[in-house]
């Protein structure tokens, strides 16, 4: 492949990349979510840091929006954690769960089933003892069905 062809190809590739929406970026918020975050946490989404040591397990495509299994766990020592919330950006009410954690919990682990009205980001947010907020985000697709 010559240099010119290579450059042309990369240009195409970059353009394609820029145009493709991909999955919803984790930082993209919704007004409803912001309202709930302000009300319950007192912060905006931009103030919450996405970190790898909070782990959110949920299906990529839900088998039923009425019953989506979600598990939150973290390697952050329980002594440093105060609170856990789960939010679904695009639900009519994004607030899903509110869990107070104490050292008696042993570790950060919470598993539940939630309802989702449509495809949306799901967020697990932890409030740490030092007053900071951290989270994990995963997009869960809710679909009417598909093809075999």
């Amino acid at each position: 492949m010559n240099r010119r062809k290579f450059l042309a190809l990369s240009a195409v590739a970059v353009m394609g990349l820029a145009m493709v929406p991909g999955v919803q970026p984790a930082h993209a918020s919704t007004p409803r979510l912001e309202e709930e975050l302000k009300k319950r946490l007192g912060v905006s989404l931009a103030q919450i840091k996405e970190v790898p040591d909070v782990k959110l397990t949920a299906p990529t495509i839900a088998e039923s929006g009425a019953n989506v299994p979600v598990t939150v766990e973290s390697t952050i020592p329980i002594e440093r954690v105060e609170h856990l919330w789960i939010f679904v950006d695009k639900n009519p009410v994004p607030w899903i769960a509110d869990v107070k954690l104490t050292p008696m919990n042993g570790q950060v682990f919470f598993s539940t089933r939630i309802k989702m009205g449509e495809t949306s980001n799901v967020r697990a947010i932890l409030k740490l003892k030092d007053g900071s907020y951290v989270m994990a985000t995963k997009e869960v697709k809710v679909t009417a069905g598909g093809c075999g």
Partner: protein
Amino acid sequence: MSLSRREFLGHSALALSSLALAPEAFARKHASFEKLMEFKPYGNLTLVFISDFHGHLKPMYFAEPMNLLAPEPLKGTPGYLAGMDFLKFYNIKPGSVEAYMGSCVSFIKLARMYGMTGGGPQVATVIKAIVNERGRDKCLVLDGGDTWATSGIAVKTDGMAVVDWLNYVGFDYMVAHWDVTVGKEKFLDIVKNKLKAKFISYNITEEPFGDLVFPPYDVVERGGVKIGIIGSSFPFTPLANPRVYTEGWSFGVRPDELQKYVNELREKHKVDLVLLLSHDGLPLDIALMKIVKGIDIVISGHTHDITPTPVKVGNTLIVSPGSHGKFVGRMDLDVRNGKLHGYRLKLIPVLSDVVPEDKGARELVKKWYAPYEKEFNTVIGTAQTMLYKRDTVFSTWDRLIGEALADYYHGVDAVMSLDVGTSPGFRWGTTVLPGQRITVEHVYDVLGMTYPEVFIMKRKGRDLLALWEDVADNVFNPNPLYQQGGDMSRIYGVEYELKINTKQGDRIRNVRIKGKPIELDKEYLVAVYGGPPPMGVQPEKKNIREIVIDYIRKKKDVHVDRKPNVKVLDHPYNTDCYWR
């Protein structure tokens, strides 16, 4: 590959002239059984595998798609290579056996030259020949699922004709998708009591506590190699098929659990080799292997892709052996001291006229077919246009089915006629060549659901649009983890423009229903079949197979308009590959 125009013309000329003389002789001369089987043995272990057999115990024609429309980031990658792109990518000569088997290019011409493909007795011959050559103790025989459903004989015998064949050939392991549609109880009975192969799946668990329904993996020794094999059934079975078949079970893509089993096999069982027998689909397996580490080889089914050379992701090799009995995969491996040192792969083309039938398998097929031969062989018409199923958005089979629905529901309640008929984007079916007689079995083979009910309902324009956008996102989402591995619903009575590279809600444009722009608040009369049943709608008296059979009988000579009802805005779209 660079093929000059002259070379290409040379091939076609050769093909044409031989056609005029004696096509069968030509095919036999250029493709002997020995040549098809040719393989220099290698290493100490052999994987023999098929996938997506779709219940085809008899030879058939099956045309690969003219188009595999890809979202931009996946364009040109395995899983999205059709026609000339496929031939170039794998360096295959147009007109060759491999080109006939793996691409749409000149399909009609080549089909007349090389004949039908697959067939239970033929596939049995190939598998048994490999096993005999290598020795049973060195071979692992695998089936990737979609095996005993979706054909005439599968529907008539609740899958048992194919189960009997699997047992006869001697498969070791399998996973599932459509196989569950014989009914949950029957499926469990087959897997537990009838099937000799072991059924393994790490991603089928009981709701709500997550207990495994089947063994997630097995450990087996072959050729002195300790092998750990994990099974993955189709992750979206509960969504793609009526929920009743998997009631109480949860599926899904579960990278963490998969990684846990890989680690368990390596650390606890000290295996030399880890295999994944998967019905995830090729694009999804490629994405998944970027997350899960430590799997040596994935045998990947579901999307019917053909990979003459493996797709490499890190240290993992992914192989997809096509569908409908067209290929038997043979992969010889050199595994020593707990490590895969090398491999040799061939997807052996099963040309039905060239591969001799296995006697026992032929008897078995004959026995199972006997009660149905008369019905299956009933001629109902002649195809004047090639009837094919595969393509991302449109096919002649689906247009014919749409026409049949529109004809049957013309003037349903004296006021309304059918506005829209949707046909699911299954990747299985059959092909009927121009001039070939259409039989009842062909209709079964393209509409072989165990749930052939048709549902008629009224739906607002906006709801239809939302539904089609939803399906489009399952097909065109740029992240394979969010795709379902099927094709787009075929929407009869509707014309639209499709933009692939945009977000859900923006892909389907300029929709016209019966020639008029869609009205969002207007109610349309819609016919659907082949998916999860719509809630609260009673099935119609006549099922889809009966409607289509009657329509073909009425028409006798079946001409189908080849012009697609979809205009693809941001991807090339081929419409003449088969006819070249």
